[in-house]
């Protein structure tokens, strides 16, 4: 069975921004495996990841259930977290993700959010902070099936590039077959606000601390809706720890 698995390439839509060399070197099984999670109707589950390597999670959220995924992708090598979620009536999917780091690595999140029944909601917030020649990606596909009226799906991606060679990619894909649907999507890529940096310096805050405060404020958005506040704090700390060691 394992020999049948074929390696994806960057010609595949879902892998278009992936690190081609890292893919070729990978074990096909890890690329095609899924961790399966079922959230029973009316119940709530949360998963959190400090992403390394490639992981794929497939989730089915029962009626009125809630699934929350929070993740920091600050890996030292190519790393990708992929999540495919199917929502039943009135279910909610919450995703908060941060890619952060330098080097020349690609770090990415890929989500496929299937609103399979009416009244389901989803909210995805991804923040990317990169320097060096690093790449941060967020590919988010939202599918709303024919009968999934009153779907409310939101996706927001923002990236800050601390140095010229870094880059960020996002590719929202909406496939909507119902008519009474709200889909909000926002994306922005920019640099740190230099006037805020000087304002902080003028008050005595050294550049590294000013940058850390700004980045912290920026990525905090991703974990704002995470129900476990302590977990949110931990993820923030983890993300900021790579910034602290950065040579900028």
């Amino acid at each position: 069975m394992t020999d049948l698995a074929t390696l994806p390439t960057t010609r595949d839509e879902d892998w278009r921004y992936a690190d081609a060399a890292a893919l070729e070197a990978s074990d096909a099984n890890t690329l095609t495996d899924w961790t399966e999670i079922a959230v029973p109707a009316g119940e709530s589950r949360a998963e959190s990841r400090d992403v390394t390597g490639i992981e794929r999670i497939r989730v089915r959220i029962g009626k009125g259930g809630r699934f929350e995924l929070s993740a920091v992708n600050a890996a030292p090598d190519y790393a990708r977290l992929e999540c495919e979620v199917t929502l039943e009536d009135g279910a909610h999917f919450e995703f908060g993700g941060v890619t952060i780091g330098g080097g020349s690595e690609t770090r990415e999140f890929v989500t496929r959010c299937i609103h399979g029944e009416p009244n389901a909601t989803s909210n995805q917030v991804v923040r990317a902070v990169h320097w060096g020649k690093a790449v941060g990606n967020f590919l988010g596909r939202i599918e709303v099936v024919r009968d999934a009226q009153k779907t409310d799906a939101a996706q927001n991606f923002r990236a800050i590039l601390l140095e010229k060679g870094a880059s960020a990619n996002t590719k929202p894909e909406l496939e909507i077959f119902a008519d009474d649907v709200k889909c909000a999507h926002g994306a922005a890529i920019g640099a740190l606000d230099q006037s805020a940096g000087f304002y902080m310096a003028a008050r005595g805050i050294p550049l590294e601390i000013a940058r850390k405060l700004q980045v912290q404020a920026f990525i905090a958005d991703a974990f704002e809706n995470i129900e476990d506040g302590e977990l949110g704090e931990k993820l923030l700390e983890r993300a900021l720890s790579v910034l602290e060691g950065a040579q900028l």
Partner: protein
Amino acid sequence: MLKIENLHAEVDGKKILNGLTLEVGAGEVHAIMGPNGAGKSTLAYTLGGRPGYEITEGSVTFDGQDLLDMEPHERAAAGLFLGFQYPVEIPGVSNVQFLREAANAQRKARGEEALTGGEFLKLAKEKAALLRMDMDMLKRPVNVGFSGGEKKRNEMVQMGILDPKFAILDETDSGLDIDALRTVGDGINSIMRDAGKGVLLITHYQRLLDYVKPDKVHILAKGRIVKTGGPELALELEREGYEEVV
């Protein structure tokens, strides 16, 4: 205390300060007035060390040290405070967090002990009360959603907390209502009127000078000081305008 000699500076290749010379002694308040675009804010930014403001000639010493040789945050730690004409918004960073980082970074640079959370809050409360600012505003992100006047008042709360030796206040009076102007004037006097401190007040209006009496008034035009006088010069300007006086 602050000695500026023959300062020339340019921004984006455009010459803005053209041989500006000015000295403010300890215990003194000097006002700088001048037409729009004269270079007043450029002077403030240059003294603060803003990136992009290139000094092509001249020198600035602050308490005997070469100011131009220091990084912006080092200038602050040395006791220089810049009150911004347009205070900057910092989303996601609360005033309390921002000011505590600032106060402790300055203390660390000077080899002093950091303030504990309790000590800092006590100080912040005291200064907010001095400037009649609601403590709740200090919990909000820095300047985000503040009205023009609230931003200026917030600058003065920050000055109170950081307790600088020398303040350059760029149009701190602009945008303040009549009562706020008095509060801010009183605040400047209470924080900065001291034999060991100095103030450079950049303003367009005489009114603030009724509360904070300057020892000298300078007129800055086309990047240099073109006239210096006593407090009466500000009154003369108010009556007759720059064209007559300069």
